């Protein structure tokens, strides 16, 4: 299992979701993507992306305006 730490802090939509998709391309099933961002849209966007792609949204955290979304890659063929 590989953990991909993706730093999207300071970027606004579509920065975080673009970075997530780019990391997802490199990842395999079972890998973890930890997406960090300051754009509050990262949480609903990631939830929607996980729902639509059937990847697993493991956790979301918010601390002083910084968001961390943890996703387990499960949907690749």
């Amino acid at each position: 299992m590989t953990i991909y730490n993706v730093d999207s802090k300071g970027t606004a939509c579509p920065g975080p979701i673009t970075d997530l998709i780019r990391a997802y391309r490199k990842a395999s099933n079972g890998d973890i993507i930890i997406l960090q961002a300051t754009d509050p849209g990262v949480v609903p966007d990631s939830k929607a992306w996980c729902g639509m792609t059937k990847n697993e949204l493991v956790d979301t955290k918010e601390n002083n305006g910084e968001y961390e979304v943890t996703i387990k890659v499960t949907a690749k063929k």
Partner: protein
Amino acid sequence: MIKIAMIGGGAGGLITTSKLSAELSEEIKQEKVSITIFDRKETQEFQPGYLETAFRGTKPEKLKRPVDKLISKGVKIVHANCASIDLDNHQIITEKNQEKHDFDYVIVSTGCSPDYSQIPGLREANMDFYTDAEVSSRIFSTLQTIKSGRIVVGIAGLPYKCPPSPNEAAFMADEYLRRHDMRKNVDITFITPYTRIYTAEPINEVIEPLYSERDIESRTVFNTDSVDPAKKVITSLEGDTVKYDYLFLTPPHKPAAFLKGTDFADDEGWVKVDKRDLHITDHDYAFAIGDTNNIPTSKAGVEAHLEGIVVANNLAMNVTGEGTKHFFTGRTQCSMETGFHHATFVVGTYDRPVEKIKPTVTNYAEKKVMEEIYWASLHGHYEWLFKYHFKRDYFAESPS
């Protein structure tokens, strides 16, 4: 003598050196400053015109001008590409004869280009409107032969330049087929890895209804994995498939090869810069502008332009000791043609989200004006107009 090296002679390189040569004209005359562009290419192409070539049949030669005629007074050019940069030792080595050139300041503006290696089968199956004008013209040749079937357009991978262009391809293909009374026989499908047809919600709200009106099918969160040119099938990372008869996808893009593996670029080769003043991390005499850097904005000509203005101002200020420092605002101004002489714009900054702008004929006319003034703008002739148009977004006087 202070030597300024510009790596890349595209729109960003030409506009930046144009402003530099104007700001430092006296110093250049007195041979205190030299400005040199390094770029192998002899011809500059108007890249936003590739869509017109692909979907309206504009001749490729109409999009071309000799680079030597676009260089501003006082600027030299070495027709050789950069093979490597040694930032610590202030030196570049060119591909041609491995020549070494020293610099005091360097600006990297080498753009980006399609990277077909990321998606097996895509190169064999696809025709794009990014590689150059000639390649774009193949789409129009094909379009004229289409009687029935399915055209697939959209985003095959990230990042790519000119964010609205895949959507424009859908609208322009639709317009062509309707004007030739062929639309009822031809399906158009748009694919994207994003969750929306256009990733920024305000623009998505504008164009999603148009997709319905024009009967353009969309497949969101489709992460293209591979293309089978024999079976004419695109397969996603999740195993979903889309069939096509004609494929005009937007490939993922890559930076210039010499940047990959350097300590000033990320693992894919995009140059790491400060998003406000564009200096390369840890090197205040080195900058990267336009598509080649890693800042969180669109890869589009307007960014290269406005970043170049900021860098040229600040560099001239360093040389002369006069003026005030400027900062890039992150302003985007990407036109999106929606067909039938209408267009919208994707407008935003680092600090303001993308605006909701409805497609109008006026916006389309504004896009056409830009096409008319493009070549002169490379010489800096219309900076007064850009400054007026962008107002407070032309540059910022403080970093936040």
